[in-house]
C-alpha cells in the first residue's frame, strides 16, 4: 500500500526518456516476484512443522524414520487416534471436559474483569489513577514464580487443592497484561461519543457497556482468543493444583502421555493434534470475525 512506487516522482521521468518508466516497471515486476517468493518460502517454513505433525500422526511406526520424509502415508492409520485417546486412564474425554470447563469460565471472567478495569483507567479521572496504573505496569514485571508458593499455601489452607478454584478464581480478578492491552485500545476510541452520552445523562457504566464495549469487539476478541489459548495450554497451574487423574487437563495428560508412551511417536503426534484441534478451530472461527476486525479497526484509528 505504501511502498508501491505508483507515483514515481515526476522530476525523474522528465529527465530521462522512456527508460525510467521501463526500468521502473521491470523493477516493480521483479519486486513482485521477489515479494511472493519470500512470502512463500517463509510460509512453507512456518507451516511445515504442523504438516509434519499431522502426517506423522497417521503413519505406522516404521514410516516415521524413513528418509526422505513420506509426507502422505499410503495407508493412513486412523487407529492411532483411537488407540491414543484411551491409552492412558481415564481417557481424553475426561481431560477434554475438564479443560473446556476451566477455559470457558476463565474467558468469561477475564473479558469482563479486564474490560471493567481498563475502562476505569482509560476513561475515568480518579484520585491516584496514574500512580495506580504505574503500579499495575510494575506488577507485569513480577514473575508469577515469586507468588507461586504463598498462593499454593493459601489454597491448600482453604482445602481447595484438587478443585478447579485455584485455576479459575484468579482469572476473574484480571491481570495487568490484559488491562494494559485493553486500556491502550480504549484510549484510541474518540471521547466525543462519551461526551455525547454524558450530555444525554448516561453514567459511566452505561458508557462502558453501551459505547466502549460494542466498539471494542475486535480487541475483546483478541483478549478472548489469547485467554483461550493460554488456558488451554496452561501447564504449571494444573501441574501444581491438580493431581487426581480425574481432574487432569489436556496439557498435563499430553506430557504424561509423552513420557509413558515415548516410543510410540505416531500416537504421541495424534494426541498432540487432538490437543491442538480446539485451538485451531477457535482460531479459524475467530480469524473471520476478530482478527479481520482488529486490522479493519486499525484503518479507522
Amino acid at each position, binding site marked *: *500500500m505504501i*511502498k508501491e512506487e505508483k507515483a514515481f516522482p515526476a522530476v525523474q521521468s522528465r529527465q530521462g526518456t522512456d527508460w525510467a518508466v521501463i526500468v521502473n516497471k521491470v523493477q516493480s515486476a521483479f519486486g513482485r516476484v521477489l515479494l511472493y517468493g519470500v512470502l512463500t518460502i517463509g510460509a512453507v517454513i512456518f507451516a511445515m512443522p504442523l504438516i509434519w505433525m499431522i502426517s506423522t500422526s497417521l503413519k505406522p511406526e516404521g514410516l516415521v524414520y524413513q528418509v526422505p520424509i513420506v509426507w502422505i502415508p499410503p495407508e493412513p492409520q486412523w487407529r492411532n487416534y483411537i488407540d491414543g485417546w484411551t491409552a492412558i486412564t481415564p481417557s481424553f474425554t475426561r481431560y477434554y471436559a475438564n479443560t473446556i470447563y476451566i477455559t470457558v469460565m476463565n474467558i468469561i471472567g477475564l473479558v469482563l474483569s479486564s474490560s471493567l478495569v481498563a475502562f476505569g483507567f482509560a476513561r475515568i479521572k480518579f484520585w491516584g489513577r496514574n500512580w495506580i496504573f504505574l503500579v499495575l505496569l510494575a506488577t507485569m514485571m513480577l514473575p508469577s514464580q*515469586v507468588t507461586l508458593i504463598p498462593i499454593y499455601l493459601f489454597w491448600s489452607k482453604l482445602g481447595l487443592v484438587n478443585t478447579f478454584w485455584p485455576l479459575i478464581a484468579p482469572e476473574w*480478578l484480571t491481570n495487568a497484561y490484559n488491562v494494559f492491552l485493553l486500556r491502550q485500545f480504549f484510549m484510541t476510541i474518540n471521547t466525543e461519543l462519551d461526551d455525547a452520552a454524558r450530555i444525554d445523562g448516561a453514567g459511566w457504566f452505561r458508557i462502558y457497556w453501551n459505547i466502549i464495549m460494542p466498539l471494542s469487539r475486535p480487541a475483546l476478541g483478541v483478549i478472548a482468543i489469547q485467554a483461550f489459548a493460554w488456558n488451554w495450554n496452561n501447564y504449571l497451574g494444573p501441574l501444581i493444583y491438580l493431581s487426581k487423574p480425574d481432574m487432569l487437563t489436556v496439557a498435563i495428560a499430553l506430557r504424561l502421555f509423552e513420557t509413558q508412551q515415548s516410543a510410540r*511417536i505416531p500416537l504421541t*503426534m495424534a494426541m498432540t493434534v487432538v490437543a*491442538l484441534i480446539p485451538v485451531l478451530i477457535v482460531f479459524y472461527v475467530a480469524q473471520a470475525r476478530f482478527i479481520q476486525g*482488529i486490522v479493519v479497526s486499525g484503518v479507522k484509528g
Partner: protein
Amino acid sequence: MAVQATAPGAKRGRMSQRMRDNIAGFLFISPWLLHFFALIAFAMGYSLWISLNETDLFTWKFTGLANFTRIWEDELFWKSLRVTAYYTFTLVPLGIVIALSIALLMNQKVAGQGLWRTLYYLPSVVQGVAVAILWGYVLNPRFGLLNLGLERLGIEGPRWLFSETWAVPGFILMGLWGAGGAMLLYLAGLQGIPTALYEAAEIDGANSWHRFWYVTIPMLTPTIYFNLLINIIGSFQVFTQAYVLTQGGPNNATLTQVLYLYRKGFQDFQFGYASALAWVLFLIIMLFTILVVRSSDSWVHYEGEVKK
C-alpha cells in the same frame, strides 16, 4: 457543563461530580485492586518471609539473608542467568525484526492476504506442551524436520537439544516460530498509519526509504515498545520448553532461571532458597524493564502528544 455553570451552586455540583468519578473509578478497577492486594501484595510479603528462612514448608528455620549470599556464590545460578539472558536477548530482537518484516511484506498489496496471515499467524496460537513436544521431534538430530531440511541444502545440522552449544539456539528457533502473533499487531499498526502522512512526506520529496524510516517506523514505535516490554518479561520466565524437553540439560546448557527455581523448590524442597531465587529473578527483570521504560521517551513516538 455550560448549563450547570450558570446555575446556582455550580461549584458544589462540580465537586460532587469529581467525587462521583473517584468512586466510579475505584469501583471499575476494584477487580484489579483485589488482585493486587490478595495475589500480589500479600503473597509477595509472604514470599519475602519464606526467602529469609530455610524451609521445606513443614520445618522452618530463620536464616536471614543467608539464602541471598548463597545465590551470589552459586555457580549454577550464574549459569542459569547466562542461559536466560542469551535466550532473551537473542530471541526478542530477532522476533521483532522477523515479525515486522513479515508485516511489512504483507502490507504491500499482496493477493490473498487472508491466507498469508493465517499461515504466519497459526503457529503463534498453538503453544505450550504440545508445541514443545512437536519441536522436540522437529529438532531431532537424526530424523527431525530441520536437519533433514538442512541436509537437502548440503549442511550437516547440529545435534540441537543434545548439544551444549546448540540447545539454546534450538529453543530460540522454537520461539521465533511464534512470531506471527506480534506480526498481526504490526500489521494492524501499519494499516492504521494515515495515508496523509505519506502524502505529505512525498510532497516534501521523501523517497521510499525516507518514508519508511521517518514515517512508518516512528508510527510503529508504540507497538514495538509494547512487544519489547512484554517479550523481555515473558522470555525471562521461559520454563515449559526447558522442563518438557531437556530438563535443563545437556550439562545445564538449558537451565533457565525459572527451571532452576523449580528444581530447587519442587524437586529439592528448598523453598526458602527457591523463594530467594524468585526474588532475584524479579529484580533482574525489573532492572531490564526500567532500562526499556526509561529509554522509551527518546524513541517511542505517540501521535497524540505531537498534536498537543
